[in-house]
C-alpha cells in the first residue's frame, strides 16, 4: 500500500537558516500522525511543505504516491487548518465551508447539500447563515474543520488548531477531532508542541528538534523508549543524571554520575567510557526504594500539588533538582530539608548517549 504522505529527505532552507533538515517519514493512509516539538523546531515548516505553501530546498514530498514537486497548494489533495483558523470573516459559515467547492465550480445545489452534511458532521446544524464572529472558539474550530473536509482532501493538515482554546475545550476538541478522524477515515497530520495532545490523539508521533526528526513511533514507544536525550526530556518529564559509562551488561548500563555509579536500561548498546545521561521518570522515582534498587540521597524540598498527582522536589548533593511523582495516597511526605534515600529499579531508568548520532549531522 502506498503511503498517504511520504517525505523523502526533505530539507527546507530560508536563506542561511535551515528550518528542516533531511526529514524522512512515511505516513500511512488513515493514520493520525503528529509532529511534536518545541516552537521553532521546524514542524510548521514541514507541514507547510506538505501542503505546498513551502517548496522543499531538497528532497521529495509524495502524496498518495505522487511526487508533488511543482504542484501548488491549490492543486494538492491536502487541506490545511491554520493555527489561527483563517476563517473568512466576511463570509457566513456556509460560505466558508463551501468556498473550496465554489472555486472548483461545484454547482450551488450540490454545495448546499455538502454544507448541510458537514454541519451535521461537526454538530452545528442550523449555523449555516451565522457570521463567523457570532461563533464561539470551539464552534469556529469545527467550522474550520468542515471547511477543510469539504474539498475531500486525502490528507488533512492541522497546525496547532487547539492552541487558542481553553483547557476544558481543548480536551473536548481532542476527542472530537479523534472521533471525526475515525468517522471520515482520513489521514490527519497534526502539529503540536503539547506532548499531552500528541500522546492522547496520535497513532504515531514524530518528535522534532532543531529541524531534525529525532524519533518516530507510537506514543508509548516515544514515551517509554526514547532514543535521544531530547526525546526523553521533551516528551513527558524526566530527571537527568549525566555521567560516563562504566560498564554494560544484560541490556543495562552502569554510569558514573556525580552521585556514584548508577544503572539503567541501555537500549542502544553504549560503549564503555562514552558520555551518557541516565533518565528517570518522576513516576519511576521511589521514596522507599527496595533493596535491589539503584539508590541516591537527596534533600527534600517543596511539594507541588496537582490534584491527581503530587510532585515532590528534591535537591541532590551536587545541586541537581529531581522530581518525584506520587499518587493521591503517596504515604508520608518527607519534611522539607530532610535528607532522604530515593531510588528506582534499573529497568525503569534509561541511559542514552549525550551526543546525538554523528551520521545525523546535527550542528
Amino acid at each position, binding site marked *: 500500500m502506498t503511503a498517504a504522505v511520504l517525505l523523502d529527505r526533505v530539507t527546507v532552507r530560508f536563506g542561511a537558516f535551515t528550518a528542516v533538515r533531511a526529514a524522512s517519514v512515511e505516513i500511512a493512509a488513515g493514520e493520525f500522525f503528529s509532529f511534536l516539538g518545541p516552537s521553532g523546531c521546524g514542524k510548521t515548516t514541514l507541514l507547510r511543505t506538505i501542503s*505546498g505553501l513551502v517548496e522543499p530546498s531538497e528532497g521529495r514530498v509524495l502524496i498518495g504516491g505522487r511526487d508533488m514537486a511543482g504542484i501548488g*497548494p*491549490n492543486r494538492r489533495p491536502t*487541506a490545511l487548518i*491554520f493555527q489561527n483558523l483563517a476563517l*473568512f470573516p*466576511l463570509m457566513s459559515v456556509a460560505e466558508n465551508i463551501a*468556498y*473550496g467547492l465554489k472555486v472548483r465550480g461545484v454547482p450551488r445545489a450540490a454545495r448546499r447539500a455538502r454544507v448541510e452534511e458537514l454541519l451535521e458532521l461537526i454538530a452545528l446544524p442550523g449555523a449555516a447563515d451565522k457570521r463567523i464572529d457570532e461563533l464561539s472558539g470551539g464552534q469556529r474550530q469545527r467550522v474550520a474543520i468542515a471547511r*477543510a473536509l469539504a474539498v475531500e482532501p486525502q490528507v488533512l493538515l492541522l497546525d496547532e488548531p487547539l492552541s487558542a482554546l481553553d483547557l476544558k475545550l481543548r480536551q473536548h476538541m481532542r476527542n472530537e477531532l479523534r472521533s471525526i478522524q475515525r468517522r471520515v477515515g482520513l489521514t490527519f497530520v497534526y502539529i503540536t508542541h503539547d506532548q499531552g495532545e500528541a500522546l492522547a490523539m496520535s497513532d504515531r508521533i514524530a518528535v522534532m528538534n532543531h529541524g531534525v526528526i529525532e524519533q518516530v513511533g507510537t506514543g508509548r514507544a516515544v514515551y517509554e523508549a526514547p532514543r535521544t536525550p531530547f526525546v526523553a526530556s521533551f516528551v513527558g518529564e524526566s530527571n537527568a543524571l549525566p555521567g560516563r559509562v562504566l560498564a554494560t551488561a544484560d541490556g543495562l548500563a552502569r554510569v558514573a554520575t556525580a552521585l556514584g555509579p548508577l544503572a539503567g536500561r541501555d537500549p542502544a548498546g553504549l560503549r564503555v567510557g562514552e558520555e551518557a545521561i541516565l533518565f528517570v521518570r518522576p513516576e519511576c522515582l521511589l521514596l522507599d526504594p527496595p533493596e535491589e534498587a539503584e539508590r541516591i540521597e537527596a534533600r527534600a524540598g517543596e511539594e507541588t500539588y496537582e490534584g491527581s498527582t503530587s510532585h515532590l522536589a528534591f535537591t541532590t548533593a551536587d545541586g541537581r533538582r529531581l522530581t518525584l511523582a506520587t499518587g493521591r495516597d503517596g504515604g508520608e511526605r518527607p519534611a522539607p530539608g530532610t535528607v532522604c534515600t530515593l531510588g528506582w529499579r534499573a529497568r525503569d531508568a534509561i541511559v542514552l548517549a549525550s551526543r546525538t548520532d554523528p551520521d545525523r549531522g546535527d550542528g
Partner: protein
Amino acid sequence: MHASVGKILVLAVPVLLLLAFLLLGLWERRALGRAAGPSFVARNGAPVAIWLVLMVGFWTIVLIVLPLLHMVDLSFRPKLPPAQVGGPQDLYTLDNYRFFLFGGGFSASGWNDTHIQAFLITILASILITILNLALCYPLAFYMAKVAPEARLRLLMLLLVTPYWVNEILRAFAFRILFGTQGVLNKALLGAGLLTEPIDFIGQNVALYAGLSYAYLLLMVFPLYNAIESLDRNQLEAARDLGAPWWRIHLDIVIPHSRPGIASGTTLVFMLTAGALAAPQVLSGPNTLWFTPIVYDRFYQAFNWPQGAAYAFILLVTCIVFVLGVLRLFRLGLGEMHR
C-alpha cells in the same frame, strides 16, 4: 427674499448644528447610560477638554463651515457693485445657476454648451482617471503590502514619494516638456523611426489625462496599501490551499477586505481630480476646457464672484453625490471608510 438674511443664516446654521450635536450627545448618554465609563472631561481634565474643543471647533467652524456657507450664500445673490450690496436690489436669485445651464442667451441651442460640456467632460474624465488609478495602484499596493521584502518596500515608498516633493505646477510643466510636440517622447519616437511627424499629445489631451492620473496617485496607493496590509496572510494561504486560483483570491478575499481602502482612495482621487486646477491649466489643449479653470475664470476673469460660487457649489454637490454613490456601491458607512 432679501439677501441680508443670508448673513444671519450663515452664522445661525453652525450654531444650530452645534446645538443639535450637543443634544444628540446628551440624549445618547441618557439612552445608553454611563456604560462608556467616565466622561472625556473626567479622564483628561477640563483644560485639555476645553483646549481640544476650542481647537477642533475653530478648525471646523471658522476654517471650513463658515467659508463654505458664505460661498453657498454668495452663489444665490446677484452680482452687484459693492455700494449696492445689502441694498434693495440684493435679493436671493437662481440667476447664477440659470447661467450655468442656459448661459447669457447667446448660444444657438439655448443651452450653455461650453460650460455644460466642460462640466460633463470633467466628471467623466475624473471617473475614468479614478478607475485607471485604481487599476494601476491595486497591484502595486498588493505587492507592497504582501509580497515585497522589507528593504524593497522602503525603497518603493521612497521612489513613490520623492517625485511629490516637487511642486505640483512644476510637475505639470515636466509633463508638458515630456509630451510637447518638441518633447522628449516625440523626439524619442521620431528618433526610433516609429513616427514620421510628431503627435500633438497636448492637443489630444493625452498629456492632461496622464498628468492628472499621476497627480493624485499616492492618495490611491496609501489607503489601498493600508487596507491590504491589515489582511492576515493566512487568509490568502487558506484560500489558496482550498483550491482558489490567484484571481479568485483577489476577487473573494483581498478586494472585499480592502473595500474601505478602495472607497477612500477612489473618493479622494475623484474629488481632487475633479477639482484640480494646476494640471488642467498647464496641460490642457487649446480646445479643451476643464471645469475648474472655468470656475477660476468666473472669479478672477469675469470678476463675477456669485457666479463662481455657484459653479463651485455645483462641482461640490456632484462630488458629494459621487462619494455617497461609492459608499453605497461598497456598502460602507461614512465612518468605516478610514478605518
